């Protein structure tokens, strides 16, 4: 009864839609909620898996609303946070939401288009690249660190040394962010600081501290007021921007979904550089497409016949209750993604319209304060007091990039670098050098 299963997916969209507008939530939390749902309401495992699919699609499409209106981005939405908030300041917040929604829909379309060749293509990639994963990940980290350029905006210092110092201020801060995040990664990834019963939420406070809280604090300091939002039917974008943004974002997102540890933000930067992404619109579309490909793509790979690659929190938790068996299951998932994406887009449109109507005139300070309270409550609820302490430490780290105009992705690369080193067999050596092994 495929129709019944599609209803499961639509219920997932509704559930995920509600959760997506809570700032600071991450699919890793969804995975935790998934366990709760399964234990409380035993149901058909395939139906539950498709409900998770609906939730994930909703998160990928609707979750950008918090970035646009409330300024609480995560790693996957950092890429578009700046242009989206700029649109909000110009009274075009709803338009920004729709543009990012279209980007996500584009990624859904591409995912559906590659579905027929996926059982052939992805197993080949997996087979060939698996033994090379270590140096590929080190290469990604090396590129991201090497490709950050100075942001002195043209130093006015009179001497060569003065100019060099100005230029290297942001670069040094970038390296400092990387090193401190790496040290944190060695600690948090070795010894979970959250209580044992919530160990699966270990990384949530880190991500919230790195991205969401610093952005909210910055908004609090800026004391801006949200202007009246224009709610029209227009969306000023070119076809080429949609095409380039969607394809770049999709490639980056799928790379991140396929490779372990690589996140949507990292994949987005790599794909953006490779395809020459330019301009606010392309960044917004690309960011949304990348986010969709990363979260939903990772779940999709779990279902691909002959592949069954388990990547991402949702795939891991689903693998406990359900394992895809027949090819028909895969096509059911593809259908569920298609239906859920359209439903999530409609829901996102309605939610965005509603928020755009009521948010104008609000003090951004009050909105940001509300968001901050919400984030703190969620982190406390999911990860306890230890999680809050971890979040505070990560917030300190997360404030370095906006203060010194350096790349925020250095935090992600640094945090996961211990895993990269482990894959290259270098972790023990580095730990010895650090004196902790």
């Amino acid at each position: 009864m495929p129709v019944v299963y599609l209803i499961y997916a639509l219920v997932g969209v509704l559930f995920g839609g509600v959760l997506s507008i809570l700032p600071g939530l991450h699919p890793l939390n969804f995975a935790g909620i998934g366990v709760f749902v399964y234990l409380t309401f035993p149901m058909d495992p395939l139906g539950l898996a498709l409900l998770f699919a609906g939730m994930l699609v909703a998160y990928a499409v609707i979750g950008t609303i918090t970035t646009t209106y409330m300024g609480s981005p995560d790693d996957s939405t950092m890429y578009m946070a700046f242009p989206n908030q700029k649109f909000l300041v110009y009274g075009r917040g709803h338009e920004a939401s729709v543009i990012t929604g279209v980007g996500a829909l584009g990624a859904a379309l591409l995912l559906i288009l590659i579905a027929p060749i996926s059982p052939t293509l992805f197993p080949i990639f997996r087979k060939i690249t698996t033994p090379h994963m270590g140096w590929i990940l080190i290469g990604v980290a090396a590129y991201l660190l090497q490709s950050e350029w100075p942001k002195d905006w043209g130093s006015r210092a009179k001497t060569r040394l003065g100019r060099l110092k100005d230029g290297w201020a942001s670069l040094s801060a970038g390296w400092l962010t990387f090193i401190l995040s790496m040290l944190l990664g060695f600690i948090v990834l070795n010894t979970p600081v959250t209580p044992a019963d919530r160990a699966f939420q270990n990384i949530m406070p880190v991500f919230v501290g790195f991205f969401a809280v610093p952005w909210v604090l910055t908004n609090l300091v800026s004391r801006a007021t949200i202007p009246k939002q224009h709610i029209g039917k227009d969306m000023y974008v070119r076809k080429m921007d949609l095409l380039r943004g969607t394809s770049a974002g999709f490639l980056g997102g799928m790379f991140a979904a396929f490779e372990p540890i690589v996140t949507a933000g990292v994949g987005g930067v790599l794909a953006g550089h490779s395809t020459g992404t330019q301009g606010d619109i392309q960044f917004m579309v690309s960011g949304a497409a990348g986010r969709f490909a990363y979260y939903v793509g990772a779940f999709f790979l779990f279902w691909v016949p002959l592949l069954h690659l388990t990547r991402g929190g949702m795939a891991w938790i689903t693998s406990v209750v359900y394992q895809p068996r027949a090819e028909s299951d895969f096509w059911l998932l593809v259908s569920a993604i298609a239906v859920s994406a359209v439903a999530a887009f409609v829901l996102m449109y309605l939610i965005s319209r509603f928020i755009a109507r009521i948010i104008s005139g609000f003090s951004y300070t009050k909105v940001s304060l509300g968001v901050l309270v919400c984030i703190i409550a969620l982190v406390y609820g999911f990860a306890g007091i230890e999680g809050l302490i971890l979040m505070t430490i990560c917030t300190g780290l997360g404030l370095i990039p906006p203060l010194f105009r350096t790349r925020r992705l250095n935090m992600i690369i640094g945090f996961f670098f211990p895993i990269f080193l482990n894959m290259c067999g270098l972790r023990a050596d580095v730990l010895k050098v650090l004196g902790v092994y």
Partner: protein
Amino acid sequence: MRGVTHFIMGITVATFFKSLMVGALLEDWWLIVLGGIFGLLPDTLDFKFAVYMEQHHTVIDPNPYDMRPQEIAEKIAAEIDAAANLQPGQMRKVKLHTLKIGPDLWQSYAINFNKAQKQVEVRVGPHVTMSGVPVFGTEPPAEKAVGVAKFKPKLIETYGRPTEIKGFSGPSFGFLKRKDGAVEVVFIPFHRQWAHSLTLGIVFALLGWLISGMWQLGAVIFLGWFMHIVLDSFGHLGNNLFWPITKHRTSGLYLVSAANPYWNAFTVYSCIAIILWNMNMYNAEVSTSYTVPAISSLGLIPYLFFVIAVPWSIIGAIYYWWRQKTKEQKPYEIFAPPEGAVGLVATEGMMGMMEQEHYYEIEEKPKPHILWRIMGVGVFVIIFAVLFIFGPSW
């Protein structure tokens, strides 16, 4: 070419070396990454070090709230005149600063070297965002928008379009006195000098070889570096290949635009396809579990044809068709026609980008002799042929 293109090209040449690939498979070596690091290093050295070492004779740093285009034009023209009085081979340098007026707002202005009229033209534009999207209502009044100043010497300028000074760090210009008495405009003179020379590449390679004791590592370092120089020479600017023996940067081959998204994406994709071929081939040396025999049995030429040539010919044809179609056309929207300032800002921003992508079609650009251009491509092809043939024995 973009940084990621150079980086992945360096990685690609490294994956031809059997010893490094088998080392990565059996002992988790990450030395292949050195190809990428050295592939990007020339630009790293230029934009993180050399840029700060440049000394300027004139620094133009206007007040964004009181722009005086005439003053800017006169200062630049004076530097061109001063260059005419130098000895051949000497240069005067001018730095133009960008003008940041908000978190994402810049005062834009543009410089044009009008060779025919022998004048420097300066136009003050509106405030723009980092992406170059103009803010309407910020344009200066007509009488304060333009400055023109005459210069005396014959000017050689190959860029062929105005230089816009918007976001990030501003450009610098060198005015080089030539032996024939003319003055040549050198765009960002610090760039592609010592850091883009073969000599420095050889020094790094020798150091890598001496430190590691592996000649393959030295070869990877040199090839990563060398491929950067080869790729760069395909564009508008060349390199100073034999610094310190040679003193100046050569002209590029004008084959592709460094910022062109099609060529960058094509190069990155082709590199990934070649890396996968090499991975598949060397995986077979270690374990059959990680190899796809169907790819190996297909053969190299058919693989390159079907995996790279066919899809990119199709994409290239569509891209060319699209460029021709949009060349003379104002951009348009998919859901609604532009109305009011919001629509205009959106479309004008896009126009700025379209102009950038089309600038290589300016007719007056001088192209190097066809033989040089063929030779440039030939070097590239020969390197890959050598790597494909001899890589499996290195």
